[in-house]
């Protein structure tokens, strides 16, 4: 299934609703649906915050599919070229005073998904994620 999100944080609720439908249709475990939701939420939020000069510009395309035990999510946008996986990995062991939340979103994507990749093609950022349904993480 494919859907489009406007550049508005309220659209995160629609992302959740679309994923819930996809999960029900494919009879996915709620845990997997939630993990894919977190990963897409973080990437979509980054595009909304940093992808466009005009804070309400752009449309983000999300495509979800299932092939056997693999769930694939492809996220694409026409914002400025940005590879989220170049971001530096946050130190998750620092004490409260020194903690920040920068970089945690992409860290979740790395931890919760089985595969992730980035490409810039025809003026679009394309992030592809794979999650195995039978995975134990």
């Amino acid at each position: 299934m494919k859907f489009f999100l406007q550049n508005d944080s309220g659209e995160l609720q629609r992302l959740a609703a679309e994923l819930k439908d996809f999960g029900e249709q494919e009879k996915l475990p709620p845990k997997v649906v939630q993990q894919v939701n977190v990963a897409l939420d973080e990437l979509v939020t980054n595009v909304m915050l940093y992808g466009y000069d005009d804070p309400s510009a752009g449309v983000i395309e999300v495509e979800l599919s299932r092939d056997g035990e693999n769930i694939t999510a492809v996220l694409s946008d026409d914002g400025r070229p940005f590879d989220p996986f170049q971001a530096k990995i946050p130190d998750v062991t620092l004490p409260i005073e020194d903690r920040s939340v920068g970089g945690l979103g992409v860290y979740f994507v790395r931890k919760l998904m089985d595969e992730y990749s980035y490409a810039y093609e025809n003026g679009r950022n394309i992030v592809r994620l794979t999650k195995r349904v039978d995975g134990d993480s």
Partner: protein
Amino acid sequence: MLEIIDETENGVAICRFRGRLDGSTSTQADEHLIALAGKEVGDLVLDFSELEYMSSAGLRVLLMAAKRAKKGKVRLMLAGPQEGVKQVLEISGFASILEIHPTREKALQAMAS
């Protein structure tokens, strides 16, 4: 959608979070907790048992609240996170900087001790 319900139990302030804490609701949650800190309610339990979902936007709110609590010398505890929210707290390392209890009762017991 996020609903935050203020309660007190045994004299301890409790915020019951119901719904989703993400980039679309984090400002609402942050403002709510800042307002509570302004009222100097003292120790605070965030009851997450009805919180269905949290992203890093929610962690930012929790980190700010934890920093305020530390500065104000009050205790902040989380209670009853569901599996998905718990996983986000664990992966981020927040489980080691925040005091988290499996239920509200356990949190209140810890507050009383």
